[in-house]
């Protein structure tokens, strides 16, 4: 099944990935030091606090946070905080540090597995570009922070690789874990179903479903979210509390559409992005750029007829759009498939000699974002 590495598939080994990861995190540390911010505290911003609280205290019984007092940690899926709690229990490492160590370890594995996936599914692979893009590309600090993004990438790439290799049970288990990490995991199941439907010309659906491993693998996929929902019902009496509590962050369909209306109307407003007060840094135009990037990358997957990845990308893009402008960059970066699309674009459309300068620009952009992250800039919430 595995194709041997060809000259067009320059796949770096684990030592290279580890080296790149260490160098990148040293850059993050140096920037924190330069800005006079504690490295661990600087990385652990916004939702990191929720994950740490969840890992140390479990799911809330009552809401307690935000100015209205209506926010609770029900919005956060359990696998990542469970991993933090387990790491803390095993090694007696503070929760905050544990969250960062887990994210970085997960990202190291995610890069290795995604490289194998690229190797098996692409004609050409820009392996070195991919490694540096993952460790230092825009928003890569999410994968180093106490956020579930790195674990999601690890499980997402593992699930895609297993599905591609027709290891359906393994794909089901990884997708179940994916669904226990973030809601978007469900879209992997939708992608699998679409992939099966697409293959019905070669092999009828009824015949495909005669494979018991495939059926069990598909049935396993939603297990993570179903267990989480069942737990929330037992804990609170509301299985959908993770969705209902979004009101605490003013997330509603009408609110999001109104938000996009304003964002699109003020399409060229970059003004507040450089505001002196970090809490004021926000620009409509910035999010419009990501709207276009998301559409473009989804288009890249569609034009390549990568139906599994593009169907996942479409679902995520729609949900990210409906969640409002501020969520879009994080959802795009944290979902793997858009990064795969960007890799494909670079490999196919960017000349080899231009890839390194492009990477340099992206790293520079990321360091600017990270500087804002350390400042607790509002647009990175």
């Amino acid at each position, binding site marked *: 099944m595995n194709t041997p590495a060809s000259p067009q598939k320059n796949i770096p080994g684990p030592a290279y990935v580890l080296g790149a990861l260490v160098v990148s995190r040293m850059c993050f540390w140096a920037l924190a030091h330069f800005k006079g911010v504690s490295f661990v505290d600087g990385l652990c911003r916004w939702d990191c606090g929720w994950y740490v609280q969840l890992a140390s205290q479990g799911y809330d019984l009552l809401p307690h946070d935000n100015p209205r007092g209506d926010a609770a940690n029900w919005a956060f899926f359990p696998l990542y905080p469970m991993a933090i709690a387990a790491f803390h229990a095993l090694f007696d490492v503070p929760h905050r540090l544990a969250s960062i160590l887990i994210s970085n370890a997960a990202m190291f594995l995610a890069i290795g597995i995604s490289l194998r996936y690229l190797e098996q599914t692409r004609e050409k692979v820009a392996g070195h570009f991919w490694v540096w893009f993952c460790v230092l590309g825009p928003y890569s600090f999410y994968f180093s922070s106490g956020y579930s993004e790195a674990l999601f990438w690890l499980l997402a790439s593992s699930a895609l690789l297993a599905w591609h290799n027709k290891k359906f049970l393994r794909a089901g288990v990884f997708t179940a874990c994916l669904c226990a990490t973030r809601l978007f995991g469900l879209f992997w199941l939708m992608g699998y179903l679409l992939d099966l439907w697409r293959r019905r010309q070669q092999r009828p659906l009824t015949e495909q479903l005669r494979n018991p491993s495939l059926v*069990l693998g598909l049935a396993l996929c939603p297990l993570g979210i179903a267990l989480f929902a*069942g737990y929330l019902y037992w804990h609170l009496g509301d299985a959908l509390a993770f969705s209902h509590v979004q009101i605490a962050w003013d997330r509603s369909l009408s609110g999001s559409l109104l938000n996009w209306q304003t964002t699109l109307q003020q399409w060229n407003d970059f003004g507040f992005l450089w505001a002196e007060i970090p809490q004021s840094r926000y620009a409509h135009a910035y999010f419009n750029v990501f709207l276009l990037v998301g559409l473009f990358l989804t288009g890249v997957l569609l034009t390549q007829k990568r139906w599994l990845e593009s169907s996942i990308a479409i679902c995520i893009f729609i949900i990210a759009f409906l969640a409002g402008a501020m969520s879009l960059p994080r959802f795009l970066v944290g979902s793997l498939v858009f990064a795969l699309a960007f890799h494909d674009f670079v490999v196919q459309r960017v000349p080899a000699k231009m890839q390194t300068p492009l990477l340099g620009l992206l790293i520079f952009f990321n360091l600017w974002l990270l500087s804002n992250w350390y400042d607790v800039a509002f647009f990175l919430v």
Partner: protein
Amino acid sequence: MSHSFWSKPQIKYGLAGVLCLFYLVVAFLALNPNASAEYQAYYIDRTSNCHHSQAPASIAPSTSIRFGAQRPHQTCTTLIEGWDWQQPWGTWSTEASATLRFQIQSDAHQHAQLLFHVLGFAPLGQQKAWVFVNGTYMDEWHLPHENQTTFELHIPLTRADEQVEIEFYFSNPHELAWFNKATNPIDQRKVAMGLLGFQWIEPHMANE
């Protein structure tokens, strides 16, 4: 032995069936929540602006009610509509009108004399608040720009422990962005009056 057991197709189909049944049960639970009435109304039905059952703030003679970030429960029980998230000092009105609800602890009084501590936001020179108590017009206040001031309000009491609803209608609520005072581009609050709190004063105090 165990390997051959788990690899049997019947076992795999059976497990898949059990999982599907489990998902049906979870879906049923999701559609039939068993939460408190307040939770249901606030988080699920979104018919209430309050997520708990605490009573609205109540005021007794010679006492006061203050607003601010340390009193988040008042955000939904007392500051009913048209108010911003609470600041350390109190809260801004953010719409063309704002509603306040509280209980007056009284068994012997026929009226309550309340003294409101407010801030005005009137960058163009004029900001008026028309005050309605339980739907009846009571007073017109002229709010000075970014200055703290007090206004008295005479509230007739018809019964003991009466719940009072005060509505403020503002003449010129302004967006902060119009005056370069917005926190960021998505700050679209239309500000007219800041409310710090109010106190029940005795009539002789009012006359002084």
